[in-house]
């Protein structure tokens, strides 16, 4: 495997690991919580990039896998006292199986029709969970605090969740890189560019896409399991929030779809922007007071517009086009 002798592969993993170590070295729970969220977004954006950036299938339903993984794992932890790591893995496999079954019909659609169908899947899943009593229906499920006892209390449980999220994010990035540099990845890129031509060249589009979709569902499910484990509560509105899917699209486009580093950069920039705007004091213009705490959606919308209109390749894509020399270090 040439990937393992690739400079940019190790560079990327090292930078992410180093950043992930910061809150532990600084012993700062606040920083840790911030980074937990960032790494979660990195996982979501990177995995979305596999189906959207590599394969060309724009999905508004990516958060379904996040929610589904969360629900599966939460149920197992709450009612079967399962360890979070095992529950997360089972949640991941469950989401992948769901993606596989869903992909068989849905991936036949192309372009806007696929995108519309994924919105439908998200809404249907939320409506289903609202009425599914085994998983708590509209009220959702919440932990007794005793669930955390196995891990030595809520504090060390949060720590464990963080370490696990670091591993999940690194695994997602590594998978994203390996796929991009593999024969399978070349097949995905060919499908993105021209599915019919790809098929004439010998690629089985149905199988290849289904495989990509199944993989891309695994990682957000792990992230969902860890997020809701730490959260202690899960409900349909949070688990299947269409807005999060849209945010994921913005991150991928902003950083550069189809690149490995792009979604990571996109997630980081987006998260910093949001937290800056949430904590910003209200602005008073004359008699008008503008509260900026929900303003990040406005900014996200404008950013998406700017990227789509002027820099379709995104930040990393643009850098790679503009400076061919950085390609070696920046995949």
């Amino acid at each position, binding site marked *: 495997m*040439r990937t393992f002798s690739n400079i940019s592969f190790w560079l990327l993993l090292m930078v992410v690991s180093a950043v992930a170590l910061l809150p532990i070295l600084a012993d700062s729970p606040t920083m840790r919580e911030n980074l937990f969220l960032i790494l979660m977004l990195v996982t979501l954006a990177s995995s979305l990039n596999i189906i959207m950036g590599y394969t060309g299938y724009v999905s508004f339903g990516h958060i379904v896998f996040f929610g589904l993984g969360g629900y599966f794992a939460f149920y197992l932890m709450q009612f079967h006292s399962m360890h979070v790591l095992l529950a997360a893995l089972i949640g991941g496999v469950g989401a992948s199986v769901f993606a596989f079954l869903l992909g068989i019909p849905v991936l036949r659609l192309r372009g806007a029709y696929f995108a519309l169908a994924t919105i439908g899947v998200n809404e249907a899943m939320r409506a289903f969970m609202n009425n599914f009593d085994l998983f708590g229906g509209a009220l959702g499920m919440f932990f007794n605090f005793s669930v955390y006892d196995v891990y030595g209390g809520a504090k060390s449980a949060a720590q464990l969740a963080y370490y696990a999220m670091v591993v999940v994010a690194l695994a997602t990035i590594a998978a994203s890189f390996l796929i991009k*540099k*593999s*024969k399978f990845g*070349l*097949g995905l*890129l*060919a499908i*993105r*560019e*021209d599915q*019919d*031509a*790809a*098929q*004439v*060249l*010998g*690629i*089985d*589009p149905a199988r290849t896409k289904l495989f990509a979709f199944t993989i891309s569902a695994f990682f957000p499910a792990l992230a969902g399991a860890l997020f809701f484990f730490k959260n202690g509560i899960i409900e349909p509105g949070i688990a299947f929030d269409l807005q999060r899917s849209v945010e994921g699209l913005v991150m991928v486009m902003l950083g550069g779809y*189809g690149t490995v580093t792009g979604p990571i950069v996109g997630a980081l920039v987006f998260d910093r922007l949001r937290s800056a705007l949430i904590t910003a004091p209200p602005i008073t213009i004359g008699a008008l007071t503008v509260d900026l705490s929900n303003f990040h959606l406005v900014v996200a919308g404008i950013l998406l517009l700017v990227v789509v209109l002027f820099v379709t390749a995104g930040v990393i894509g643009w850098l790679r086009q503009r400076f061919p020399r950085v390609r070696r270090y920046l995949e």
Partner: protein
Amino acid sequence: MIFDTQDISLHFGGLLALDRVNFSINAGEIFGLIGPNGAGKTTLFNVINGVYAPQNGRVRFRDADITGLPSHQISKRGIARTHQIVRPLNELTVRENVSVGACFGRENKSLEDSEKIADEVLEFVGLTSKSDMLASKLNVAQKKRLELARALAARPILLLLDEVLAGLNPNEVSGMLDVIRKIRERGTTVLMIEHLMHAVMNVSDRVMVLDYGAKIAEGTPAEISNHPRVIEAYLGDPQVAKEFLERAE
């Protein structure tokens, strides 16, 4: 005989696109396929490589029935094609485009081997200097060569060429004809659609003529160019055509 069809028919609604087409190709041949616009030449290609399934008839390749197989399986069996309207994978480099052909074609190569094959093939068609460019940046003549390179990288047994000469200047045409002859010398059988009559007559061993979806003639280039039905298909009624030509003189 490496390839043959039996009574292939295909209609789109009420339009009969192919009407009981029978023909066969021998190993190592260059077989020309000509006919006026809309005669069904490209449709025949689409049936051969699995884009359309014929409503009637059989396609056989190397003693196996391949009728109605999906294109990717036909590619694996050793039939590669180029498109009349080029279909480059725009955001991939030229080398990557050709690697796709080698990776997923008949020999199902690994990515490493595919890149080596891609470099060889690019050298063969004369695109080596463009290897690292995005395919979208090539001009039309180069894109035609890329189509050809991608098909060749699959190491096909039968190569379908759909108007690879169209839109090329006379210099480029003779260059491309050399390439086609060399492909045959390497042992690949070629079935080519072509509008440039002098080129196809020059390079083909045998030629088949389609008109309104039906085969109207088949034979050596010399036989074809004097065939009354062929002249009729291209120029209308031979008697009228003759008079017209005489009057013009």
